[in-house]
C-alpha cells in the first residue's frame, strides 16, 4: 500500500534523526526531540472529499437527532423495557469516552508523573478528548426521555448524592464545558495571537499571564473530575446486580472502568498520532510514541492484574475458563489487552510505527470491549428480551462519531495541534508571509487554510 510505503520512509527518516542527533538521554530528561511544538497542518485544502463524507454522515445523525427530539423514543430505537439503554448510552457515553480519556491518562503522566516528553502530545489528546466528550453528551441529551427536567442539576438540594447517574450528570458536562474547554483554550488563543491584529495581540498579551496562573489549578479539576466520573460509569452497572454476568459484575467495576479509560486514553492518543501523521505525511517522533507505548503496556498489565486478582478473589476463575460463550468473550477481551501488554515491552515493537499502531488498536479494542460488554452483551434482564440497535439509532451513533472526526480534521488545519518540528513551524511561517504578501491585493485570508503545497 502506498501509505504504508510513505510511512516506512517517514520511519527511516525519523530513525535517522533519532540516531544521528541523539536527542534524548537514558532518563528522557533532555527535551530536544523531533517533535518540538504543535504545528498546524498546512499546504492542504480544508475541504476534502473525506471531510465532506464525514460531514454528510454527521448531518444525517444530527438531523435525525433533531427529529427525535420532537418524536417519542419508541419509533426511533430498538430499546425496550428490558434493555432500556441502547448504544447512545452504552456505546457513545459509557464506552467511547474511554477513548476520550487521553487528557486524563496522558495529562496525568505528563503533569503528575512528570513524563516530560508527553507534554508534546497533550494537544492531540485534549482536542480528541473534548470531541469524544462533547459528542457523547449530545448523544446523552437526545437519549433521555424527559430532558426538560434536567434543570434540577442546578439545585444541589435536589440531588440524590448516592446515585452514580447523578455523579455522571453533574461531572461529565462540567468536565467537558469547564476543564476540557479551558485546557483547549491556549491553542485557540494562540491562533488568534498569530493571525490577529495588533490590538488582538496586545489584548492576548494581557490575558495570557492570569490564564497561565490558574492553569495548574484547573489541571487539578481536570484530573479529579474524570477520575470520579470514569469510575462512576462502571458504578452504574453495580446496581444492575446479577443481571450482569458474574465475569463482569464485580465491586471492582468502577476501578476497572477507570483503568480501562486510562488504557484506552493512552492507546488512542498513540493511534491518533500515528494515523494523523500518516494522513498528513508528518514525520514521527519515535521517542515520544515509544514512551506512550511503554506506558500503555504497563497500564495493560495493571488492568489485567486487577482483573485477575478480582476474579480469583470472587472465586470466578473457573467461569472465566469454562469455554462457554461468555467465557470466550472474556478470553477474547483479555487477549486483546494481553497481546499489546507483552508485545510493547519490546523497545523494537513500540518504536516501529506499524507495530505500535497495531498494538495500540488492539489495546483500545480490548478496553472498549471490556466497557461495552457488561452494559449489553453480558446483560441479562429477568425477562426474555433482545436488543439490537435500530437503523436510526445506528445512524445517530455514526453521526456523532463522524461529527468528531470531521471537527478534528478541520481543527488540525486551523490550530497547532499535531506535533511537529521547529523547522516545520518556521517553514510554515515563511510560507504564510509569502502568501500574505501575494494575497493582500486580492483580500484573501492567508493562514493556514488557503495555503497549497508550494
Amino acid at each position, binding site marked *: 500500500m502506498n501509505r504504508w510505503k510513505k510511512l516506512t520512509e517517514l520511519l527511516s527518516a525519523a530513525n535517522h534523526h533519532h540516531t544521528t542527533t541523539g536527542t534524548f538521554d537514558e532518563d528522557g530528561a533532555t*527535551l530536544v526531540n523531533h517533535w*518540538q*511544538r504543535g504545528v498546524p497542518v498546512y499546504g492542504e485544502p480544508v475541504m476534502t472529499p473525506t471531510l465532506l463524507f464525514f460531514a454528510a454522515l454527521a448531518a444525517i445523525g444530527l438531523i435525525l437527532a433533531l427529529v427525535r427530539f*420532537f*418524536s*417519542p423514543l*419508541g*419509533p426511533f*430505537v430498538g*430499546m*425496550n*423495557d*428490558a434493555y*432500556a439503554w441502547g448504544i447512545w448510552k452504552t456505546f457513545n457515553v459509557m464506552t467511547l469516552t474511554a477513548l476520550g480519556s487521553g487528557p486524563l491518562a496522558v495529562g496525568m503522566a*505528563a*503533569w*503528575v*508523573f512528570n513524563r516530560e516528553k508527553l*507534554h508534546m502530545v497533550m494537544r492531540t489528546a485534549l482536542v480528541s478528548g473534548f470531541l469524544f466528550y462533547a459528542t457523547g453528551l449530545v448523544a446523552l441529551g437526545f437519549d*433521555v*426521555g*424527559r*430532558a426538560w*427536567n*434536567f434543570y*434540577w442539576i442546578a439545585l444541589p438540594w435536589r*440531588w440524590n*448524592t*448516592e*446515585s*452514580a*447517574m*447523578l*455523579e455522571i*450528570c453533574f461531572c461529565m458536562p462540567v468536565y467537558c464545558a469547564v476543564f476540557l474547554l479551558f485546557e483547549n483554550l*491556549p*491553542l485557540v488563543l494562540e491562533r488568534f495571537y498569530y493571525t490577529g491584529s495588533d490590538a488582538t495581540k496586545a489584548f492576548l498579551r494581557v490575558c495570557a499571564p492570569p490564564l*497561565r496562573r490558574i*492553569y*495548574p489549578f484547573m*489541571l*487539578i*479539576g481536570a*484530573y*479529579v473530575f474524570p*477520575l470520579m466520573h470514569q469510575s*462512576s460509569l462502571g458504578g*452504574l452497572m*453495580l*446496581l*444492575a*446486580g*446479577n*443481571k450482569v454476568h458474574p465475569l463482569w459484575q464485580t465491586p471492582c467495576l*468502577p476501578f476497572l472502568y477507570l483503568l480501562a479509560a486510562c488504557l484506552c486514553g493512552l492507546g488512542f492518543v498513540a493511534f491518533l498520532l500515528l494515523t494523523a501523521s500518516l494522513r498528513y505525511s508528518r514525520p514521527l517522533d519515535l521517542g515520544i510514541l515509544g514512551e506512550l507505548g511503554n506506558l500503555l503496556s504497563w497500564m495493560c498489565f495493571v488492568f489485567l492484574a486487577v482483573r485477575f486478582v478480582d476474579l480469583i478473589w470472587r472465586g470466578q476463575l473457573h467461569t472465566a475458563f469454562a469455554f462457554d460463550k461468555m467465557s470466550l468473550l472474556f478470553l477474547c477481551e483479555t487477549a486483546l489487552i494481553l497481546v499489546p501488554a507483552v508485545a510493547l515491552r519490546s523497545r523494537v515493537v513500540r518504536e516501529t510505527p506499524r507495530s505500535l499502531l497495531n498494538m495500540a488498536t488492539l489495546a483500545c479494542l480490548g478496553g472498549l470491549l471490556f466497557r461495552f460488554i457488561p452494559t449489553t452483551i453480558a446483560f441479562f*434482564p*429477568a*425477562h426474555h428480551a433482545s436488543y439490537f440497535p435500530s437503523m436510526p439509532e445506528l445512524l445517530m451513533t455514526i453521526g456523532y462519531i463522524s461529527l468528531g472526526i470531521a471537527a478534528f480534521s478541520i481543527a488540525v488545519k486551523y490550530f497547532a495541534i499535531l506535533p511537529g518540528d*521547529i523547522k516545520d*513551524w518556521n517553514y510554515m511561517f515563511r510560507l504564510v508571509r509569502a502568501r500574505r504578501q501575494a494575497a493582500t491585493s486580492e483580500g484573501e485570508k492567508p493562514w493556514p487554510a488557503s495555503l497549497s503545497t508550494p
Partner: protein
Amino acid sequence: MSPRINRRQLLVGIVGAGGAVAGGLATSAVAEEHPAHPVAPPDAVSMLYDNTICTGCRACMTACSEANGLPPDTSSGLPFETTLASGLWDIPADLNSKTKNIIKLYRETNDTGFAFVKRQCMHCLDPACVTGCPFGALKKSQWGAVTWNSSLCIGCRYCEVACPFDVPKFEWDKWNPKIVKCEFCFDQRLKQSKEPACTEVCPTGAVIFGKRTDLLARAKQRIADAPDKYFENRVYGEYEAGGTQVLYLSNVPFEKIGLPKLGSTSLGHYATKVTSVIYKWLSGPILAAVVLGALIKRNWNRHEAESLEREKETGLEEQL
C-alpha cells in the same frame, strides 16, 4: 510564582486530607444509609400473595387499571382484528406502560400442572431504583410505598436497568414519557386510608393487605400449618434483595413463576458500600485534589523553568 511545595508541606496536606477521609469513615460507620440487610420500619405496609388460593380471575387487574386510570391495554402481540372483540378486551402479555399489575399463568411443559402469579412492584425495603434515581423522582414514601414524581424525572431509565424484578416501565410511544409502575395506590387510595385496589377486590383472598410484620407472621403460620405445601417452606420477599414489602407464597419453584433468584444483600448496599465512603463529605475527591495539586505544582514549576530556557533557545513562545 508561589514558592515550591516542599516535602513537609506535602506531608501535612496528605495527613490533613487523610484526616478528612478518616472522619468520613467514622461518620459513615455511625449512620449507614444502606445496610446490607435493611429492617422494615414498623409501619411498612405489605401485600401477601398466595398462588395456591388464586383462581386467576384477574379482578385485581381491572381494579388496578380503574383505580390508576390506565387505558385499555390491547398489546397482546396478536393482530388487532384477531384479538378478542377487536381490541376491546384488556389482554396484556406482561407488565408494561399500560399495565401496573398482572396475573400470569405458568404451565408445566407436559401439562401436569399450572400456577398463577401476580406481578407488580415489590416495594423493596431498599429499592435499587430509588438508589439510582439521580434527582429522587422515585422515592420511598410513607409506609414504604415506592412512588414516582414526574417533575423530577429526566427519563434516563436507570430504574429499569437497576430493578432486579424488571418492574418500572417506560412510555416508549409518548413524547412526554412517564415511568409507569405500581405505587401501592399511594395517592389514589393509601392516603385516604383505603387499601390498594387489587387487595380490596380480590374475591378469594389470594392477595391480602396489611402491615409487613403481620403478613410475614401470617405467611409463616400458613407454612407451619401445611408443611411441604409451599416451595422450600419459605416466604419469597422476606430476604430477597434485602427484603421486599410484597411477599409471596408459592407451591411451585419461584423461578418458574418469574420471581428471580436473588441474594439477601440489598443492591443499594452492594452498589454504594465503597462509594459512600469515598464520597462522604467529598473526602476522597478532596484528598485526590490535594495530592494531585502538590505534584502538579512541583512539576508545573519545573516545566515553566524549562520552558523559559527553550524560549530563549528557539526564540518562539512556548505552547501549553
